[in-house]
């Protein structure tokens, strides 16, 4: 009786604790809504879609911040996509084991470097380099941020893309080799196309990392809320949504309009990340189930 009682107690405790993640994600959304939705009544929606972010004068146009986040994210992925996917292909398909024993831990190290450290390096090394190379008034630019974001999203891209390549059934490769294909033709013509959904997922999650990253971007992009204005924007200071929250939240009075708008930006970030992660999770699940079925049959 006692044993049964104890067993029930423990299994119920595990069940409750086990489901806590659902409660937490709901709580996060609830509190963002609670503090962020008043922004919609205090600032007219059309003023939120304005091109001026100047809270001191009551101007809360979010477009420059959306534009800033978009510029650095797109540019960081343009750098991280070839590097990340290329490295994943090299690790998964070509590199000898001894090389991988160095490559893989090195990329794990990158995943562990705190973003504030990358920001620090950005300020000290990358930004002066940018200023001198392009002869700019300041080296704190969108490109400087994009470069750091690329470093931050590379570990994610490499590990998911590597899994995707690994999940391609051996029979595909064997069939291509039997037809006389070279190793390169197998990789480029068979394995990579077969893994494309997974590679796309890897890139999506990389976008998620870039979009949500805060400290490194805040430290090196100059934090000027400007709109996208052609190619010049890449070498000008910009400001992202995340950096705006991080740099301004400490100075606003809780309950003010500015405070509510910062939470509203948080709601937008939360929704973006939710869409990216849930849709990637679905494609990962489908792919592994499918490839397992293919291996078995």
């Amino acid at each position, binding site marked *: 009786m006692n044993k049964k009682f104890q067993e029930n107690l423990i299994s119920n405790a595990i069940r409750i604790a086990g489901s806590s993640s659902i409660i*937490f994600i709901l709580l996060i959304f609830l509190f963002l809504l609670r503090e962020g939705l008043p922004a919609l009544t205090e600032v007219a929606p059309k003023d939120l879609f304005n091109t001026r972010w100047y809270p001191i004068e009551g101007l809360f146009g979010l477009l420059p911040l959306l534009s800033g986040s978009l510029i650095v994210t797109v540019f960081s992925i343009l750098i991280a996509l070839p590097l990340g996917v290329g490295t994943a292909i090299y690790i998964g398909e070509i590199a000898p084991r001894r090389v991988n024993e160095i490559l893989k831990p090195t990329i794990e190290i990158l995943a562990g470097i705190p973003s504030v450290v990358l920001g620090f390096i950005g300020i000290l*090394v990358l930004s002066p380099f940018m200023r001198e190379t392009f002869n700019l008034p300041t080296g704190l630019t969108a490109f400087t941020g994009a470069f750091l974001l690329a470093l931050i999203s590379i570990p994610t891209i490499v590990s998911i893309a590597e899994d995707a390549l690994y999940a391609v059934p051996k029979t595909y490769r064997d069939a291509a080799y039997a037809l006389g*294909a070279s190793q390169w033709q197998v990789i480029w013509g068979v394995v990579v196309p077969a893994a494309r959904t997974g590679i796309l997922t890897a890139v999506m999650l990389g976008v998620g990392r870039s979009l949500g990253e805060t400290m490194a971007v805040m430290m090196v992009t100059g934090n000027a809320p400007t709109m996208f204005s052609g190619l010049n924007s890449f070498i000008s200071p910009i400001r992202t949504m995340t950096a705006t929250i991080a740099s301004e939240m400490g100075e606003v009075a809780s309950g003010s309009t500015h405070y509510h708008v910062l939470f509203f930006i948080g709601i937008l970030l939360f929704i973006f990340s939710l869409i990216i992660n849930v849709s990637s999770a679905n494609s990962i699940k489908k792919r592994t189930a499918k490839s397992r079925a293919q291996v078995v049959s």
Partner: protein
Amino acid sequence: MKAANDLDWGNPTLNKKTIQALGFTLLRLISLLTVLPILGIVVYIAVKGGSSISWEFLTAMPRDGMRAGGILPAIVGTFYLMLGTAAFSIPLGLAAGIYLSEYSNDNSWTRLLRIAIISLAGVPSVVYGLFGLGLFVLFFKFGISILSASLTLSIMTLPVIISTTEEAMRSVPYQFRIVGVSLGGTQWQTIRKLILPQALPGIITGIILGLERAVGETAPILFTGATFFLPRLPSSPMDATMALPYHIFVISTQVPGMPIQIQYGTVLVLMVFVLGMNLAASLIRSRARARRQW
């Protein structure tokens, strides 16, 4: 046989071997380009920061508005935050991982739970900061404190601990469970006495990796627990605290005339902290793999 070699795999005018050689060289270059900046950063910080590290730097309080003396309060603060995060996230994460691996069925509730975990893993760190401010600092009135910051970091760390625990539990062969129950053990006894010990190295690795991320984060503690200057060490969980990542952010962007050596030294200390945990995790993982008998 001729047909096989003439198959059109791409550009037929270039020799198959030349293309392969070019392709491989390209991928080698790409991998090198990816790895070099990483090694460069680590070596750069080790070299530049090495000379700042002294016994005084590690164990003394700061002086002259942070421009001299040591960084003891930031090191201790980071340590407290790690302990606080561990205290909340390990029990919850373990329970959730065990639940997913041993108790859950493949029903819609479990699928919802998995979506929740994936979503938690993707929430931007600064949004965790906002949430911690809204719930712990203001709603529960814990204030800017170690408690609020640890709770915020715990929820952020949870998905890592849950998924590594689940994976480690699932990798224990099913026979262990059959043996446990057939010896008259209850499900919990089987889990605790047979499966958990086998899964432990994997779980510990996951916990260390989760805490490693928490220790290096700045954005979640910006408005929940971090403070730039504390003339003494925090004495209770309700105190605000200094922390290495936040300290690096402030001294490299907000304080004019900050001696560069203190900046490099602080960065090096955080890197040693974080990469040491990384190393410990890989050592535990590889030793457990070597010892495993199934």
